[in-house]
């Protein structure tokens, strides 16, 4: 599914923010991505959702080597990746329905199909009564659910969430992770970046821990104990 081989990343002529990162994610796996602020979590995610390319090393995504992949094949690859951005990145002048529908429109779906499926999904995330609401009129938690719905509407093979629990209270954060687990059971590979160690300890999933640009894989506490 995802393979990093000695990947390094630096911005401009600055220091390397990621150094010799090597790991592999199996299809259907669930990983946390942890690390202190500035450890490189967001950069790693940006590499994963093809917003950035590494300064060195090889990335293989869906069995395709990104270094040699023609640029015009990137959009098709991106459609297989759902991203929940830390700041949601909802389009403010569009309604919740239109925001969630964007990936389908981009993929060329018909309007009647889009409306049916998007309404269904918005109902599923508890926003059935807010389909026509603009993001600015929604609460942070509701905006987050719109962002999640947009990320999963195309049933991505890989779902990346950058600090999805950063703007919500503990109760909502746990609900959110249960939701990701449900999606994971449906076959989606999931990577959730967070620095909330207490939250991570409640779930039995391995963590990719970044420490000053270097990666360590941590097994969940319960698995390690057994």
């Amino acid at each position, binding site marked *: 599914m995802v393979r990093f081989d000695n990947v390094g990343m630096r911005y401009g002529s600055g220091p390397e923010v990621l150094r010799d990162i090597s790991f592999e994610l199996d299809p259907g796996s669930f990983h946390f991505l942890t690390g202190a602020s500035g450890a490189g979590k967001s950069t790693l995610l940006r590499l994963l959702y093809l917003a950035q390319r590494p300064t060195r090393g090889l990335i293989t995504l869906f069995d395709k080597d990104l270094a040699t992949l023609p*640029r*015009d*094949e990137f*959009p098709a*690859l*991106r459609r297989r990746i759902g991203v929940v951005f830390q700041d949601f990145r909802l389009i403010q002048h569009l309604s919740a329905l239109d925001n969630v529908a964007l990936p389908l429109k981009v*993929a060329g779906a018909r309007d009647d199909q889009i409306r049916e499926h998007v309404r269904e999904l918005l109902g599923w995330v*508890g926003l059935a009564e807010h389909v026509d609401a603009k993001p600015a009129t929604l609460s942070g938690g509701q905006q987050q659910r719109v962002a999640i719905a947009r990320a999963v509407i195309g049933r991505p093979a890989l779902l990346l969430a950058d600090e999805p629990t950063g703007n919500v209270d503990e109760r909502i954060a746990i609900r959110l992770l249960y939701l990701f*687990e449900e999606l994971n059971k449906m076959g989606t590979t999931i990577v959730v970046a967070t620095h909330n160690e207490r939250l991570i300890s409640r779930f039995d999933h391995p963590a990719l821990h970044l420490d000053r640009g270097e990666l360590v894989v941590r097994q969940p506490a319960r698995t390690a104990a057994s």
Partner: protein
Amino acid sequence: MQVAAVAGGTGNLEARVAAALDLLRRTPGIRRADPISAAAATALLEPWLGSAAALADLPMPRLIDISFDTHQVDTAALGRQLASAVPGASFDDHRRWIEGLAAIARWVIMVAIGIVLLVGGVAALSVIFAVRSGLAVHREVIEVLHLIGARDDYIANNFARHTLWTGLRGGAIGSVLALASLIALAWLGRDMAPGMLPGLKLEALDWVLLALLTPLAAILAALTARSTVLSALARSRSRWSATSRWSGAASSTRRSSTRSTPAWRPAWRRAAPRSTHSCSRPTRPTAQPTGASRDPACCARRWPDSSLSRATP
């Protein structure tokens, strides 16, 4: 040509006219030579000199209307020949001032075409700058679109569609104002020198061309917008490539073959049945069933039973 009645003339006027006609009709290249009757000549002068009764006392020349082949007739020689053969006769070649007027008309047409091209160029430049501003304003939206898999042509087509509708709306307003201006000009000029200036009258083809002007301009603006967006995104792709960014890189106007397996397909309908395993042990998806029912109850079963709003730890 004209044959003067008195000045320099001798003998009977009708006889001199007949002599002139005889000479003209024998000249090679003269296709037609018809005398204009005194009544018709008087009618021609009436607008400037008054009624026919007043003109009756004036020594009116006789006019002969001639058509000839310009390549075969030397008008200067013909004029000299007429003057010597028919006393009082003079040859007036209208081509000199008609050619002058035609040259002026041609220049007016050229200037008009130049103005149309200038206006079109300015309109295209306006569209280019407006679209570039739009790209700058919507930079974050465009980045999000790229990250969810939009191609450059999807973004460009959206800009083009918006520009097309804006152009049609603006063109419709402009057409109404132009029509009002034409009607006002026609109304203001209704009493101005009738007979000297051609009337302002549009034929059916003119109306069709005017009606097509707005959609054609809107289409031109839309194509300009599309081309501007595509070239701007291509340029930013080069810049991003140089700075190791991929956001705008994966763009092409070419459709990918992956369109045959549309990602928009309600994939959760095709999802594997919910696993009965523990949450902590993710399972890989099994073969995805096809032809799922659109029954809402069925759809609800496709999604996990616990939604975000209902899920409890």
